[in-house]
C-alpha cells in the first residue's frame, strides 16, 4: 500500500500537504449539480434579503424625499446624513446592528435597508425636484388634491429617476448581501466564505461569486423591463 504522504514524496522545497495535491478546479459543474438544493436555498435567502431591503428602503425613502423637497431646510441634513451613512463600511454596519438583533437575518436586513434607503433618498429627491414647478402649479390650479397631485403628476414625471434609483439600489444590495456572512446570513456569500473555510474549495467560491453577479444582472434586466413597462410614454417621445 502506498502512503498518501511519505517522506520521499516531500520535495526539497519543503513539506506539501496532501490537500495541495488534490485537484481544486475553479469551476466544477458536478459541484453545482450535487449541491443544487443547497445553492437554491442560499439563492432564496439572497433574493429575500435583497427584495426586503429594497422594499423597506423605498418605503422609508419616499416620505423622506417628499419631506426634503417640501422644505429646503430639511434637504441639507437629509443629504448630509445619507452621505455619512453611505460611508459606513458594511462590516461596521452589520457589527453595529448585531448587538440588537443577534445572529439573525434581521441584522442583515436592517443594514441592507439602511444602505438602499440612502441611495434611494437621493434618487427620489432628484426625481421629485425634476418635476417643473409650473406643471405642479397648473395641476393645483386645475383642482388636483394633494394625493392626486402626487399620484397623477409627480409620480409619472419622476418615475424614470425613481426606477434608476431602484436599479442602482438593487444591484448594490445584491453585492452587499454577501457581507451578511458575518452573522451567518449572507445568502450566496455563505458559499464564498464557506468555500474559503473548506480548505480553499474554489468551485464553491466561484459558484457563489458567479451566482451573485448573475443575480445582480438578472435583477437589473428585470427592473429595466419594468421601467419600460411603466413608462411607455418615454419611448413614444423618442
Amino acid at each position, binding site marked *: 500500500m502506498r502512503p498518501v504522504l511519505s517522506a520521499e514524496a516531500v520535495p526539497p522545497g519543503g513539506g506539501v500537504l496532501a490537500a495541495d495535491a488534490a485537484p481544486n478546479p475553479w469551476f466544477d459543474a458536478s459541484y453545482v449539480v450535487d449541491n443544487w438544493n443547497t445553492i437554491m436555498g442560499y439563492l432564496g435567502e439572497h433574493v429575500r434579503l435583497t427584495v426586503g431591503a429594497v422594499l423597506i428602503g423605498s418605503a422609508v425613502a419616499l416620505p423622506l424625499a417628499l419631506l426634503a423637497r417640501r422644505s429646503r431646510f430639511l434637504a441639507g441634513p437629509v443629504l448630509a446624513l445619507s452621505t455619512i451613512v453611505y460611508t459606513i*463600511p458594511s*462590516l461596521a454596519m452589520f*457589527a453595529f446592528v448585531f448587538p440588537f438583533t443577534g445572529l439573525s437575518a434581521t441584522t442583515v436586513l436592517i443594514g441592507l435597508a439602511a444602505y438602499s434607503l440612502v441611495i434611494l433618498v*437621493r434618487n427620489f429627491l432628484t426625481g421629485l*425636484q425634476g418635476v417643473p414647478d409650473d406643471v405642479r402649479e397648473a395641476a393645483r390650479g386645475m383642482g388636483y388634491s394633494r394625493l392626486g397631485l402626487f399620484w397623477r403628476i409627480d409620480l409619472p414625471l419622476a418615475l424614470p429617476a425613481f426606477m434608476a434609483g431602484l436599479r442602482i439600489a438593487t444591484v*448594490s444590495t445584491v453585492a452587499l448581501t454577501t457581507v451578511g456572512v458575518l452573522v451567518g446570513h449572507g445568502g450566496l456569500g455563505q458559499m*464564498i466564505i464557506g468555500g474559503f473555510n473548506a480548505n480553499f474549495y474554489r468551485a464553491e467560491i466561484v459558484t457563489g461569486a458567479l451566482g451573485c453577479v448573475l443575480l445582480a444582472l438578472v435583477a437589473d434586466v428585470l427592473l429595466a423591463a419594468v421601467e419600460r413597462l411603466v413608462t411607455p410614454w418615454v419611448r413614444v417621445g423618442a
Partner: protein
Amino acid sequence: MNGLGDAVVYLNDPLNWTRRSGILDLLGQHLAISGAAVLAALVVAVPVGIALGVTGREAGAVVVLANVSRAVPTLALLTVFAVTPIGFGPRATTIALAVFAVPPIVTNTYVGFRGVDADVREAARGMGMSRRQVVLRVDLPLALPMVMTGVRTAAVQVVATAALAALVAGGGLGRIVALGFGQQDDGQIIAGALLITGLALLTELLLVLVSWAVVPGPRTLPFAAPRRRPAIGPEPTAEGLPL
C-alpha cells in the same frame, strides 16, 4: 444592551492599542494595504481614463465597466484573489482592493476629461500648445475636480472594504470585529466597527480637503461657501455619469 459601554472600556485600555496585533498594529496594516491599493489603482486608472476621455472613444465600455463593477461583490473579489497561488494575506488583499479601486477612478477621470469644453481645447491648440501641453495644462486642471471625486470615492471604498479582508485572513482593522464575533464580545465588535467607521469618515474628510487644496480656481473654504441649494447627484458615489 451594554455593547457601547464595553466598547468604550475596550478602546480606553492602552494595552489594546499598543500590544502586538493591537489597534495600532492593525491600523498600520490597514493603512499600508489601502495606501498601496489606491496608489496601484491610480497608476493604472488615471492614464486609461485620460486616454479614453481625450479621444472620447469607448464611452460604452466605460459605462459597462462602471455597472459591472457595482454588481461584483467585493467579498467575492477578496476571496477569489486569496485562493489563487498568491495565497491569502496582505498581498492578495492589496491586489483585490486595487482591482476594485480602478473603475471609479477610470469613470470619473473619463467624465472629467470628456467634460472639458472643446472650444477651450481648440483655443489652446490655436495658441500653439502641443497636444501634450493641452492635456497637461488645459484639460487636467479643468478635469481635476472630477478626477479627485473618483480618487475620493475609490479611496473611501478601499478603506471600507479593507475591513472585509479579515473574513479571509487578510489583516487590518476588520480583524477586531472578526475576533469579537469569535469571542462573542459585543464590546470588541462595536469598538472595531467604530474604528473602521471613523477611519472611513476621516479618509473622506481628508480627501475633501486635499481636493479643495489641489483644485485650481477661486478658493473659498468649503464651509464658508455661499449658501446654495444643496447640489445632489443621482447617487452618492459615481457623480456626473448617468449610470
